[in-house]
């Protein structure tokens, strides 16, 4: 069996988060009733014409700057011709020869710890197609064109990736950058970012490219890895059994964990590209680009480094907390308004334990950053103990309350820290447990926690553990 090398390139389609579509003034909001966000232009009615949304250029340029790419001052749209039910005009308006962005790169961390540069050939603007619903209509397919006309940035990498894992890492980095720049909401479940994987294999050491297949419309990092791995294995089997890989478009079926050919797309589709005659060239000047540059938010690497120094975090923790723009903003708020170390722990453990890091969106999190900061401050000022704080957090998460302070008051969770309150209880516990006292004094110092535990139990958990600890030790040691 020969050693095979996988050669992978990704085409990532990112929906730009503009308010209106790229060529029509219709909303891009997700989830509307079918065809209620589809205008004459989106539906390709006779006599309609496209007019380009200015916001797509700012966002495309921001991406270009984020990957160190060349921004083309002049860019042109082209027609890509093919028939498909979700493509109303029978052509897609896209960019072929004069895309807005070219020659960028993204550096990724490989499994072995090294850094690798993935080259980005180009990123261009185009319109999204509609959706087909194959389910409920016996013998027929339903077409919803709400999505038709949503602006896409198609990001094309060179075939520099060598494993499914690398591909997934690269895709995650792109995802992070897109959300950082606030040009895409990154919601993969809603289709805001989709990946097409071009996969081929070749004998290790060869410099020629094998025949590649394209697996389309993958919308999760996990599926991306699975699809690529499946495709690599499939191609190896095909070649090793004497066959040839057919150049074709495939779909990944996550239920069966397999790729299969797309039946309705012809193998050698001739797209007959030519410049879109209904649109004129767009020219952006250096001042436009500088203005976008000035407005660029902090990039992921910068933010990570800043979190390390400003909040005293380890590189690993800082990497986690800066992994997603919304998450980073959330964390930063909490860390600035309370103790950073605690903030780091709470966010990484309690928050990320309940929600995904990749698709973290602070708007969907039931605990606002301000309340988490309050909670941590209540621990810091010893109003409550860390243990009690967890119950408060749970209450916030479940929606039982929306205010830390109110909950503490209503439930009477305040920590008892006053020695004059605690000392008698400690005394009583000591008095009631002579056996343990003797054992402790005989050398079993671990029993300290027994006494502390008893006091905690006696006080319904509300005693300040640190205080109790000190009081117990003092009383036990000074008898």
């Amino acid at each position: 069996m020969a050693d095979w090398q996988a050669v992978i390139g990704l085409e990532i389609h990112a929906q730009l988060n503009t308010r209106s579509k790229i060529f029509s003034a219709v909303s891009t909001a997700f989830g509307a009733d079918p065809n209620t966000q589809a205008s004459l232009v989106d539906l390709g009615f006779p006599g309609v014409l496209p007019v380009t949304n200015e916001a797509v250029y700012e966002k495309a340029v921001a991406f270009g700057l984020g990957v160190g790419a060349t921004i083309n001052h002049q860019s042109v749209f082209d027609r890509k011709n093919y028939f498909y039910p979700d493509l109303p005009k029978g052509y897609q308006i896209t960019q072929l020869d004069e895309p807005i962005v070219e020659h960028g790169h993204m550096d990724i961390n490989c499994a072995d710890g090294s850094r690798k540069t993935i080259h980005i050939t180009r990123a261009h603007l185009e319109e999204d197609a509609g959706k087909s619903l194959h389910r409920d209509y016996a013998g027929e397919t339903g077409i919803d064109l709400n999505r038709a006309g949503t602006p896409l940035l198609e990001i094309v990498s060179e075939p520099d990736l060598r494993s499914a894992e690398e591909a997934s890492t690269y895709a995650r980095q792109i995802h992070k950058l897109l959300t950082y720049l606030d040009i895409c909401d990154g919601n993969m479940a809603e289709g805001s970012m989709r990946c097409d994987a071009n996969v081929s294999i070749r004998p290790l050491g060869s410099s020629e490219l094998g025949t590649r297949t394209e697996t389309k419309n993958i919308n999760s990092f996990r599926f991306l890895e699975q699809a690529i791995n499946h495709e690599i294995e499939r191609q190896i089997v095909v070649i090793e059994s004497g066959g040839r890989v057919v150049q074709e478009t495939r779909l990944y079926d996550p239920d069966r964990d397999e790729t299969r050919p797309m039946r309705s797309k012809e193998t050698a589709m001739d797209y007959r590209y030519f410049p879109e005659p209904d649109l004129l060239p767009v020219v952006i000047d250096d001042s436009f680009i500088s203005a976008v540059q000035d407005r660029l938010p902090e990039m992921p690497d910068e933010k990570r480094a800043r979190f390390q120094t400003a909040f005293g975090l380890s590189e690993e923790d800082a990497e986690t907390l800066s992994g997603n723009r919304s998450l980073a903003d959330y964390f930063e708020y909490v860390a600035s308004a309370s103790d950073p170390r605690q903030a780091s722990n709470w966010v990484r453990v309690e928050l990320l334990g309940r929600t995904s890091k990749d698709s973290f969106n602070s708007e969907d999190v039931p605990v606002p950053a301000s309340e988490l900061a309050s909670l941590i401050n209540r621990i810091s000022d010893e109003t409550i103990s860390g243990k009690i704080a967890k119950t408060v957090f749970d209450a916030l998460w479940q929606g039982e309350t929306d205010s830390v302070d109110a909950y503490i008051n209503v439930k009477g969770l305040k920590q008892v820290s006053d020695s004059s309150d605690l000392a008698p209880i400690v005394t009583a516990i000591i008095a009631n447990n002579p056996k343990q006292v003797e054992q402790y004094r005989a050398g079993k110092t671990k029993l300290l926690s027994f006494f502390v535990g008893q006091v905690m139990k006696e006080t319904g958990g509300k005693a300040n553990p640190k205080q109790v600890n000190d009081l117990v030790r003092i009383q036990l040691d000074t008898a």
Partner: protein
Amino acid sequence: MVAHVTTPFQSIAEIRANLDDGTYSCRELAESLISRIEEHDNDINAFITVTADDARSTADAQDVLIAKGQAGPLTGIPLAHKDIFCTEGVKTSAGSKMLDNFIAPYSATVVEKLKAAGCVTLGKTNLDEFAMGSSNENSYYGPVRNPWQKSHVPGGSSGGSAAAVAAGFCPVSTGTDTGGSIRQPASMCGVTGIKPTYGRVSRWGMIAFASSLDQAGVFARNAQDAAILLSAMTGADPRDSTCIDAPLADLTQELSTPLAGIRIGVPEQYLSELDAPMADLLTSALFEMEAGGAKLVDISLPHTRYAVPAYYVIAPAECSTNLSRYDGVRFGYRCEDPEDIEDLYKRSRSEAFGDEVKQRILVGTFTLSTGYYDAYYRKAQQIRRLIHQDFVAAFNSVDVIAAPTCPGPAFQLLEKISDSIAMYLQDIYTIPVNLAGLPGLSMPIGQIGQMPVGMQLIGQYLDEARLLGMAHQFQQRTDWHLATPTLQATGVSHG
């Protein structure tokens, strides 16, 4: 039976005077023309849809405005729209079975503007299917016949709109011109037609044939009327990216400008290849211009002979993709019981598109396909640049260019229909103007065998006012534009 309150060939100026002084009302005028259409259009077939009820109610509303003293220049003026302009709530067919069932859900900018100006739409006129043709023999609704001689074609693709004005069904009508589809029928029907500069009039709502060539324009009995109507159609439109960013134009400004001193370029390539009767009429017309003080200057347009080949790459290419949206899914014709999606597309399109349309889609698809793009589409666009440069160079030494509109008068029905090339060569003088995006006008200059012929005036970028002015001056000195056909209806004849 509504009495004919007026002769059917009045100009806008005459109609305006009569409406304003109460000689007749807008309603009476509309009724009179509707009757005329009912009486005579069976033989001519200029109309696909007559919107009689809408016309009546619009006319009534205009009468109210006139009574209040709020009339504008076009208030109450009847017109017809080429059935390629979307008209909300009204059938808009593009002359095709594909859109036979299509009631447009919106109106074209041209339609909106003329409605706002107070025009009374009498109906939608017949055309070559999807504006592809030079004889109006390619319509799903049957050919249009030339009012001058019904065995002859009116020209195309805007044959219906030209015939409607020629027959006295309305004083003005709208048309579209991609390779000559206004100018050529204007010539063949003895009316004045103008295609403005590309981008002068919005294409929003104008069903697309060839996007970089299509332009809306006007048919009228004379240049002054054309200027009035065309002016109301101009102006920037944010819905059309290719529409020039200019305000509403007043194209009547140069109607009174004398011909004296205007330099008219005459391309040496053209006159020599014309048949004698046509060449003679052209020479006479130019002589008339000279008598008015204009100067004739020889110019050369060396690349115009490549205009037709280049056009028959660019126009089919653009149309092949513009017509991909007709797939039976969201509007238009849908075949019965499609077996699968491929069948739906193939049969809906094949059953509903006519021959010429299919032909051009095939040619266009071919010339854009892989391996042929450079040799065809790109080459054609390079030639387009050269043609454009020829005109720009010529305009260094002249103000306007005079040329034939078409090689001869209207030919007979069926004479050229089976010979695509012969048909395409009808547009040999008009096509270069569309490729260069310049304005072009055709005005009547005489008759050959009792059939009218026109001459073309080609202007510089945005110089429509000058063309209209020169045509108006010519029409002050001549009366070819006043000639009218005699329509024979069953049992009744009208002058």
